């Protein structure tokens, strides 16, 4: 699972409607995997990302390359786009857990695939 995916997932336990994003990583195994740089793709994603959530998630993972706020010229800031590319598209979570900050539900990641399924009583 790439970090861009994590930025788009949230807890969906019944009744858990506030403070349920971003999910907090625990015991994660990270891996860097090179991907081809595509500036247009990154530009498209600038408005789709929850940037604050991305930065706070990265800091907890020990990734501190991203500026605290998105640069005003982000779309044409090559240095920023390269960092963003490395962080959201080349950083993979192989295994670990994602925990809802509100209801503490645990979502597991195995084989690089997040499992968002809930038990019957949680739906």
């Amino acid at each position, binding site marked *: 699972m790439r970090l861009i995916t994590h930025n*788009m997932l*949230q807890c*969906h336990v019944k009744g858990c409607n506030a403070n349920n994003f971003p999910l907090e990583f625990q015991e994660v195994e990270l891996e860097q995997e090179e991907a081809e740089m*595509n500036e247009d*793709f990154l530009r498209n994603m600038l408005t789709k990302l929850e940037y604050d959530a991305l930065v706070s998630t990265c800091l907890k993972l020990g990734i501190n390359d991203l500026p605290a706020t998105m640069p005003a010229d982000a779309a044409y800031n090559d240095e920023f786009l390269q960092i963003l590319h490395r962080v959201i598209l080349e950083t993979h979570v192989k295994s670990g857990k994602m925990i809802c900050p509100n209801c503490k539900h645990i979502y597991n990641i195995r084989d690089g*695939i*997040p*499992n968002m399924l809930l038990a019957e009583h949680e*739906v």
Partner: protein
Amino acid sequence: MLPTPDLSHLKRQDYEHIYEPAEDTFLFLDAFEDEALFLKELQPKISLEIGSGSGCVTAFVAKILGESNCLKFCTDINPRATRATKRTAKHNQVSVEIIETHLISGLLPRLQGQFDLIYFNPPYVLTPSEEVGSNSVEAAWAGGIDGREVIDELLPYIKCLLSSIGVFYMVVINENKPDEIRNIMRQDGFDSSIVKTRLAGREKLFILKFVRATL
């Protein structure tokens, strides 16, 4: 003509646990080939396949869009299918974001109105209701009464998921009552059309396309 994605990495024993591409899959691929120009002009930024199974359709759509500017999500409730989709994507040099989940659970409200393209080859086979809801290979076909139980669960979410320019494609058979489905979606503000139809054995297959009605 675009080649069918390479699935040579999937073996007989894989297809005991995931749906093996069949007539319905191939009709879906043919429909996307017909829609290729439309999809290229649409330039979707985020797409979603629900129930990606082997990953065949997503790999094909990825080839149409080019390894371009679209973030491609896939979901499947079957853990073996998510892994097959991942392998197929890798084998065909496309990147996809795979999530093990029920239909679209975990994507809303974060991704509300963000999908420009959604496609779904649902479990449309008429079965007893009890057969619906497994997370193994039966989930690929068991559709319950009228083959509509899973389809009807998803439909109300389409208006929440699709962007203003978004398009939704779905495979159905005659027994699913395509006209009724189109009426349900009309209530939600969608125009629909049939982009492809084919008789495959006893099944009459349709590929339905939905876009937001223009005022």
